[in-house]
């Protein structure tokens, strides 16, 4: 009688506690599996971003080279012809991001051929990547300087992307 009662009690206890614990563990396993999927997805995404980050130097000038003199020297411009100037403050999306966007303006007298060469350099010069031009204008500005033959007042505006190698 005792054995039957005790056995039956163990059976009932096992059924209640066991099924509760089993279902709890099943939920936990499902939650963990989802968590693992999310963690893997996050890791893959971050690794892809890391990989893309390595490509940034191909499309942005290194921080420190984004100086007026350096840029004018590399683009072979300057007084008395075209002048390079930064407009306003550089935009930094996040203090820890390491990607900076400058607004620049190149203005001054130049022939069409010089302007074309300059535009090509801005796109192809390996030492100075990161130019994005959004405004090109020939003859938009007036000047009191005496222009040479075939020269016009040229105005080029755009962005110059720079990156901080210590952060990226």
């Amino acid at each position, binding site marked *: *009688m*005792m*054995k*039957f*009662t*005790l*056995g*039956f009690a*163990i*059976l009932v206890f*096992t*059924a209640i506690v*066991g099924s509760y614990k*089993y279902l709890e*563990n*099943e939920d*936990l*396993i499902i939650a*963990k599996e989802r*968590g*693992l999927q999310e*963690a*893997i997805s*996050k*890791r893959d*995404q*971050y*690794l892809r*971003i*890391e990989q*893309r*980050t390595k490509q*940034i130097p191909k*499309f*942005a000038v290194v921080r420190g080279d984004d100086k007026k003199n350096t840029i004018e020297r590399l683009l072979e411009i300057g007084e008395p012809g075209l002048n390079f100037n930064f407009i306003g403050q550089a935009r930094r*999306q*996040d203090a*820890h*991001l390491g*990607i900076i*966007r400058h607004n620049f303006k190149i203005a001054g007298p130049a022939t*069409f051929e010089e*302007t*074309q060469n300059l*535009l*090509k350099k*801005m*796109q192809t010069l390996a030492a100075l990547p990161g130019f*994005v*031009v*959004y*405004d*090109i*204008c*020939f*003859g*938009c500005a007036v000047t009191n300087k005496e222009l040479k033959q075939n020269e*016009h007042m040229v105005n080029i*505006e755009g962005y110059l*992307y720079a990156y901080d190698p210590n952060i990226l």
Partner: protein
Amino acid sequence: MSKKVEIGSKFKNICFLGLNRVEYFPEQSEESIFADTWQDVTDEHSRRSLALLFFAPRDLDGEPVDPYIFLTEGDDGDEQSVLIAQQAFGDIPLIDMCRLRSKSPNEVHILVTADIIFHWDYNDSYIQPTSAITWVRDIQNILKTYPRTTERYIYTNWENNRISEIGATIRPLRELEIDEEAWVNMPSFQEKHGFAVMFISIVTAILVYLAIFIQGTDVDELSRQIRTVDLETPSGKSYTELNRAIIEQQKFMRYRGLAPFITSDIANAIQRSGMKIHSFQIKTPDAQKPAETLIVTIKAQKDAYKGWLEEEPISKALLGQSVTLSAIRRPPGGSQFMIEGLIELEPISQMLSEYQEDVKRMQQQTIRAATQTKTVTETTDEEGEK
């Protein structure tokens, strides 16, 4: 209605307790053993499958007596001795034959064993002493008290030449059927299956524990995998912001290589159309957003053109001479002749890619052709020298 049990099939070892001696039927033996007490003929092993059948007379009130009181030899039946007897007999099945009744009124059953003749009919059961010499005559005397038509059944393993004269059905003792009511200490369902239930529950508990343990290891393994993946995940940067910045930069950079080509095309179109211009400007509609189109604004020299008749052919010529302009319009207002043109960057990008591929293919063909010509010339020269 109680079930009937055949003692031979139910119990392996059977022991009948007579008045002064016992008859023991061990398992798989046709011969019985006689002794003074049942303990003399049984051992520990045989008691595990032993049934004790006894004949306990009813009390003065007609009710059956406590079997343990009857089986407690020489005692006065106090509680202590009953408890001792219960412990002594343990789980041995005790069958009180005096509780048997015939189910049919026209039959009598006679049991001859140990040193007694026990018979029962529809009304009651009766016991009387006998011996191996007199038992047939004793049965005959008993049967005289019943009508001739009464069905007679005799259960015994004893043998006698005159037994056939009785005219009864003789059956071996192992074929004796008893009511479950006679089994005075028949175990209840709980007692009968208690061990099985206990065993099953313990096994179930172990299996459930194992299942939960395995689940637990699965959970631990998943947690470990999550920790490993977390450790492998790059950290220390604001990756979401970084991703957004990279995507934005990529969008801005997408068509940046087209600027020299577009500028050149517009300049060529202006020159070929013969338009006398003051200035021209190429810019994105919104400098804050990555451009999919560009707007070209061409201003003519002041007073160079007078009226629609002069302006329209120039406009058409300009559109016709340009490969990048997809549409032009004259913006409303203003006295100076001005044309606005739309440049869609995606088609131009595709066109340029195809053109560059064609150029590359042609260059490769030219190189291949030149190489073949050189080889043929060298071969001809070598043959000539020979």
